[in-house]
């Protein structure tokens, strides 16, 4: 049963992250997830001071607000200051993260709070972190519910917004010319990314989230030239990575998140080598 819950949790994180990641890498914004994972720190600290406890809902809220702020700032620096997207991402998250570090160190005496306790959730604890109702009924692992909701929301977003996401990613000026609100769809996508990453950090840890956001879509991008197939392959990769990664971790008796991330990287490497070999022109003697 433990294996089932962990693999399920991994998959429920992998699929929404991967689907959103497909659009992120096509928009040259792959590192946004990494940026958000750092930039939410001040939000968590402030939420802690406002609510006075380490209760997860307010922390998620604080992190979510900062996640959105991050995406706004990136867009702002990119369009107003004419910074390249990657530079805008770098500028934004480093100072927000630093702000969080300062907040923690200033109040270090009074709080029992560090980044690890919120940001680096541990996927191994999924089966024992149960949701128990007021009347004492055990509903199963809490993370499965959180990520289940995230999964459904992201899936409906991708399905409903399919045309607009495709259009605004491929050709924003044509999209605007046909009356599509390009900025709105940008922020809907970024909102979905921050919501998903923040939810998933708390459940399975940051490294795994960043890995799932980028590596499966990048692998799928090498394998196909069709956006729908790219998303399908990403989904299948997410499943495979969760499954293989869990068993690798058991076999090695090591970190599950680490093993899953490594499997993701190895699959990417294998696909890359495969593409290199098959696309090399045949040598003529």
């Amino acid at each position, binding site marked *: 049963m433990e294996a089932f819950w962990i693999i399920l949790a991994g998959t429920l994180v992998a699929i929404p992250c991967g689907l959103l990641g497909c659009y992120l890498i096509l928009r040259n914004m792959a590192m946004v997830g990494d940026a958000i994972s750092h930039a939410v720190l001040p939000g968590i600290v402030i939420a802690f001071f406002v609510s006075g406890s380490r209760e997860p809902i307010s922390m998620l809220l604080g992190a979510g607000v900062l996640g959105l702020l991050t995406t706004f700032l990136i867009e702002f620096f990119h369009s107003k200051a004419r910074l390249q997207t990657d530079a805008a991402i770098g500028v934004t998250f480093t100072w927000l993260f630093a702000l969080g570090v300062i907040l923690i160190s200033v109040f270090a005496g009074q709080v029992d709070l560090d980044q690890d306790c919120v940001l680096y959730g541990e996927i191994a604890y999924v089966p024992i972190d149960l949701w128990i109702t007021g009347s004492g009924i055990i509903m199963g692992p809490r993370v499965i519910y959180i990520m289940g909701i995230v999964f459904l929301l992201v899936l409906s977003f991708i399905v409903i917004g399919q045309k607009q996401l495709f259009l605004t990613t*491929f050709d924003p000026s044509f999209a*605007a*010319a046909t009356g599509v609100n390009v900025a709105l769809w940008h922020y809907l996508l970024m909102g979905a990314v921050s919501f998903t990453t923040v939810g998933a950090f708390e459940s399975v840890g940051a490294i795994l989230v960043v890995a799932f956001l980028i590596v499966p879509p990048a692998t799928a991008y090498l394998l196909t030239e069709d956006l729908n197939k790219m998303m399908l392959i990403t989904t299948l990769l997410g499943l495979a990575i969760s499954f293989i990664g869990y068993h690798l971790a058991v076999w090695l008796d090591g970190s599950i998140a680490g093993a899953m991330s490594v499997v993701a990287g190895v699959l990417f490497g294998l696909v890359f080598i495969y593409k290199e070999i098959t696309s090399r022109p045949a040598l003529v003697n």
Partner: protein
Amino acid sequence: MIHQVETPIVELHDITVSYHKKPVLWDIDLTLPSGSIIGIIGPNGAGKSTLLKAMMGLVELSSGYVRIFDQDLDQVRSRVSYVPQKESVDWDFPASVLDVVLMGRYGKLGLFTRPRKADKEVAMECLRQVDMENYAGRQISQLSGGQQQRVFLARALAQEADLYFMDEPFAGVDAATEKAIINLLKSMSKQGKTVVVVHHDLQSALEYFDWAVLLNLRLIASGPVNQVLTPELLQETYGGKLTLLAAVGDLLTKKEFPSRE
């Protein structure tokens, strides 16, 4: 030499556009006739692309307003089509030729509706008009520059608009493709459609367009092509660029600007 039209299809009233406080279009007051092929001509950086974007509502206006079909752009978007410079998108994007042409149909579909069989038929017909029907399933990363341009044209055709704005549709295409495109534009204008084209080559401008707009930050001229492409006005537009001026001079003495009537 700025001709104003009685019942214009496009009317720009005192348009000024600035990028980062620096004006790149100054006080453009312009009317364009319907049913014609209109060339926008001027040196690099003259603001030709910006003028198209201003007409499509894609850049903020510092002053002035645009009327299309004597209405606000937002009321007539479905009747207007825009063909961006083909360099403006990433052609390595995972999509097929048909996917891109179908984008032209999105404006006619609601938020939730997916393209139907009828839309695919329209898209295929448009591909046929640009001689690309055999490429429908091809990935766009595998197209040549000229084929990319044809795909963009097919996408615009799929919009079934009445007014087309095209940013350099002839850039980087071979002579045969250029001819095919201009024939297409001519047949569109025969059907009463209006096409506004940003164009660079002065040699062909006389032959291609009914109406010409000369632009260099300010509006230099706008009117029937044989009245606008004169040595004085071209000199004013390209002023100071000596090599170009020489070429223009050559052209002018050679052609002597035959009347089109």
